[in-house]
């Protein structure tokens, strides 16, 4: 590969590449930054190397052996990445957990993966590990890095990362060259990461990924969209999501760009603006959030600003549509677009931290065409990515200048895509995973003759672009027998700033219905302006005025759809869907089978001649507390 000069061979491993890059850049280049105490603190490649080396040796001195699992949890921070790299250097396997995992999820993953080392961040994670330690007999050591609140913990299996690094230094004195030897012992076909996929239907499955899988994926992606070692990337999405691993490890390590870690999750957006990254990869909900933010600010602004915004977006949409159609932009339009850029787009892109963006990807779930158009109208080169954890991240991407908002693009090099007779998307590439951990049954179903069966239904269009219809099991059959993707309607609905989540129902039913979750902040603000009183989400969602508002959004989404595909009835849910209630996966995908069972009363009422449904249920808070909710929900008919 040209831009990195690194050849990916079967012998190469992530740790070998890590050591090579640290030698190459040494003290002269910043490998990562973390904002702490209000200041961006840099770590050079030499710092990165030293921290990983001593942490690795520290873990070895406590008994870490080749093939042992090391689990990590916590916000994105250098220490998390050091721990992952340290585990890999010793031949261990990294397992990442989502920061907001509930106790039983943590227990399931730690136990199922046979984890021996648990690396937490603060007291909160240490508490989680302590609570499950007895139930997970293989778990031996619990590591932490932030001393806040840890003063009263005296257990001898609890150890701070700093203390462990000291042990590593001692081992290094006793046995110099051990670290280098362990690194050189690795082979590309060995497992480096065990990734628990967010099951939309069942318990999480552990996908085994090798060094070869990870490195070829990054190599092939960057041969399409080159990156440079002068680039900046902000790492703020969970490391337990494959997308973040592929940007930070698969691509980041190969190219040597600088990783930036925000101060706190709450400051991420502000920190992105300060850094102005060159590459960005996020799931649609992040872009949906940005769109919503812009739309709400627009509603709030003065009339002159509104006019400027309307002018600039009018021009932006025109230009974007011309580009989508593959037509050239006339000179007059180019000038207008230039004015629009100066008046609005430049400022807005700066606020969103998108000023320097060269490659901007969305993936992990479906994104509505309206959002896509919105960003292109702003002049942001947003591209769709398609892939799975099982293929080390991605296999398909839009090419610059070839963006079609209803497709996900074309395969990256060394990747083949086919559609089976049943309409299922299957892929083959060097990045296809090794199998599921302790689950041969699932492996056999997913991996057939080295082809990865995705479980997604789709087709390849006339330009060779892949179109993903929906998850095969989610595809609905309409009254007239045609297949229909609920996800398509849901993303259309979510373009409204007032709608946070939508769940479209109607498989083999007489008509289509929807369960809507309003956006509490936006609708709340709207209600304040209308002088509507409310005290909770539940109360707000059931206001007649809010029903009217939601109905308007639905009618908008219904427009241009055939009659059978239109939403006929809807209900406003008394809460938003939440991953803690298992209604969404940790990557915010709707778990349909689960919600269908949980809200079966609502579902039944939507297909009866009722105008009200009574709910009696319990909700779970993040700390595990539960609350019982009893309420009546109105059912509203939409004119179609």
């Amino acid at each position, binding site marked *: 590969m040209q831009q990195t000069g690194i050849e990916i061979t079967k012998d190469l491993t992530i740790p070998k590449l890590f050591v090579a890059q640290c030698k190459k850049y040494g003290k002269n280049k910043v490998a990562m930054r973390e904002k702490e*105490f*209000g*200041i961006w603190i840099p770590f050079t490649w030499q710092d990165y190397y030293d921290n990983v080396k001593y942490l690795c040796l520290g873990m070895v001195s406590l008994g870490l052996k080749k093939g042992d699992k090391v689990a990590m949890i916590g916000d994105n921070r250098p220490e998390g990445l050091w721990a992952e790299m340290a585990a890999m250097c010793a031949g261990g396997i990294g397992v990442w957990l989502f920061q907001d995992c509930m106790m039983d999820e943590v227990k399931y993953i730690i136990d199922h993966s046979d984890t021996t080392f648990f690396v937490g961040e603060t007291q909160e994670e240490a508490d989680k590990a302590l609570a499950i330690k007895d139930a997970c007999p293989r778990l031996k050591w619990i590591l932490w890095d932030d001393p*806040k*609140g840890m*003063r*009263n913990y005296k257990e001898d299996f609890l150890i701070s990362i700093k203390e462990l690094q000291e042990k590593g230094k001692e081992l290094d004195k006793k046995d110099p060259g051990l670290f280098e030897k362990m690194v050189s012992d690795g082979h590309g076909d060995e497992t480096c990461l065990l990734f628990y996929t967010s099951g939309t239907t069942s318990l999480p499955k552990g996908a085994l990924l090798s060094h070869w899988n990870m490195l070829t994926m990054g190599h092939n992606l960057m041969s399409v969209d080159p990156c440079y070692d002068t680039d900046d990337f902000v790492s703020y999405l969970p490391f337990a999501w494959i997308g973040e691993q592929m940007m930070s490890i698969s691509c980041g390590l190969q190219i040597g760009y600088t990783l930036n870690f925000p*101060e*706190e999750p*709450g*400051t991420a957006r*502000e920190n992105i603006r300060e850094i102005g990254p060159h590459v960005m990869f996020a799931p649609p909900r992040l872009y949906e959030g940005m769109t919503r933010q812009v739309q709400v600010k627009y509603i709030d602004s003065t009339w002159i600003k509104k006019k400027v915004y309307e002018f600039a977006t009018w021009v932006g949409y025109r230009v974007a549509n011309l580009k989508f159609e593959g037509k050239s932009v006339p000179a007059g339009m180019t000038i207008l677009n230039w004015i629009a850029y100066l008046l609005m787009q430049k400022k807005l892109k700066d606020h969103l931290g998108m000023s320097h963006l060269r490659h901007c990807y969305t993936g992990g779930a479906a994104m509505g065409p309206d959002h896509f158009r919105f960003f292109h109208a702003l002049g942001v080169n947003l591209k769709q990515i398609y892939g799975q954890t099982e293929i080390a991240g991605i296999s398909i991407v839009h090419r610059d200048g070839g963006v079609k908002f209803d497709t996900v693009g074309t395969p990256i090099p060394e990747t083949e895509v086919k559609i089976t007779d049943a309409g299922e998307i299957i892929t083959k590439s060097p990045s296809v995973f090794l199998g599921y951990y302790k689950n041969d049954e699932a492996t056999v179903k997913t991996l057939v003759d080295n082809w990865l069966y995705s479980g997604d239904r789709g087709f390849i269009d006339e330009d060779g672009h892949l179109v993903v219809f929906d998850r095969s099991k989610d595809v609905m059959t309409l009254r007239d027998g045609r297949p229909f993707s609920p996800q398509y309607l849901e993303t259309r609905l979510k373009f409204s700033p007032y709608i946070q989540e939508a769940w479209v129902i109607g498989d083999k039913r007489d008509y289509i219905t929807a369960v809507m979750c309003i956006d509490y902040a936006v609708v709340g603000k709207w209600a304040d302006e209308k002088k509507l009183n409310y005290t909770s989400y539940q109360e707000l969602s059931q206001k007649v005025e809010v029903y009217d508002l939601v109905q308007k959004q639905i009618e908008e989404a219904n427009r241009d759809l055939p009659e059978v595909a239109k939403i006929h009835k809807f209900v406003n849910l008394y809460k938003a869907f939440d991953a803690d209630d298992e209604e969404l996966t940790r990557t915010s995908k709707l778990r349909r089978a689960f919600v269908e069972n949980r809200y079966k009363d609502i579902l039944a009422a939507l297909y009866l001649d009722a105008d009200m449904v009574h709910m009696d249920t319990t909700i779970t808070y993040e700390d595990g507390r539960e609350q019982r909710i009893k309420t009546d929900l109105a059912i509203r008919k939409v004119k179609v």
Partner: protein
Amino acid sequence: MVQGGALREGDTILELKDVHMYFGKVAALSGVSLDVKKGEIHSIIGPNGAGKTVMMNCINGLYRPQKGDVVYKGRRINDLKPYQRAELGLSRTFQKVELFGGMSVLDNIRLGRHIHLHSGIGCGSIYIGKTKKEELECRKFLEEEIIDLLEIEDIRDKTVHMLPYGLQKRVELGRALALQPELLLLDEPLAGLNLEEVEDMARFILDINEEKRWRVTCILVEHDMGVVMDISNRVFVLNFGNPIMDGPPSEVQKNPEVVKAYLGEEDSYSTRR
């Protein structure tokens, strides 16, 4: 970090000796004596109107008792003004948030650090020399010790009146801490907070009391009995200006007079937990 003075853990840091306070003919405090040991969390409880806030005001100098002595670190401070007491390391928060609504969080907290800034108007106006050095040290202290401790990184530049009440309470605690107090008076820090905010605030109070870098002695006026009984070393019970008892939480909970005067049935004060 926090200067310990000559006092050691367990020594008396503050003493009220037979303090009487009258407003006209109303006796707000009649013969209150209190002995606060360094390193402890000493809570004051009592029904509304018992005189808890009056006690706080007598300690920090907003009120001057007509009779009795307020002794801080062995020195009688009855005649000192509030700012002079602040200079001795005595800081407080208020029952109702008393912040500057139009200023940013950082500026509000920075104000609490005022007594540690000594540079003159000359170099202050052009930001050189001593001013620059002090300002940099001040910002470092605020960021590393307070903003990090109270987890308010994401709001440090926000205007205070835009913040929810729970966060404003946190900012007020931050301002009190910026003074680097030895003795901190907390007047109902949990009032009006939701459950999660209460848990956070209780954790912060324990942190500033127990963490080696702080070790601040706290006097806590609070109605949330669950928290008071959980985190206090000693509890002082006041009823309409009259002291009822002073002792460890376990004894206070058992005292029938206290239960009658204030706690009521057990169920009514353990609702939070």
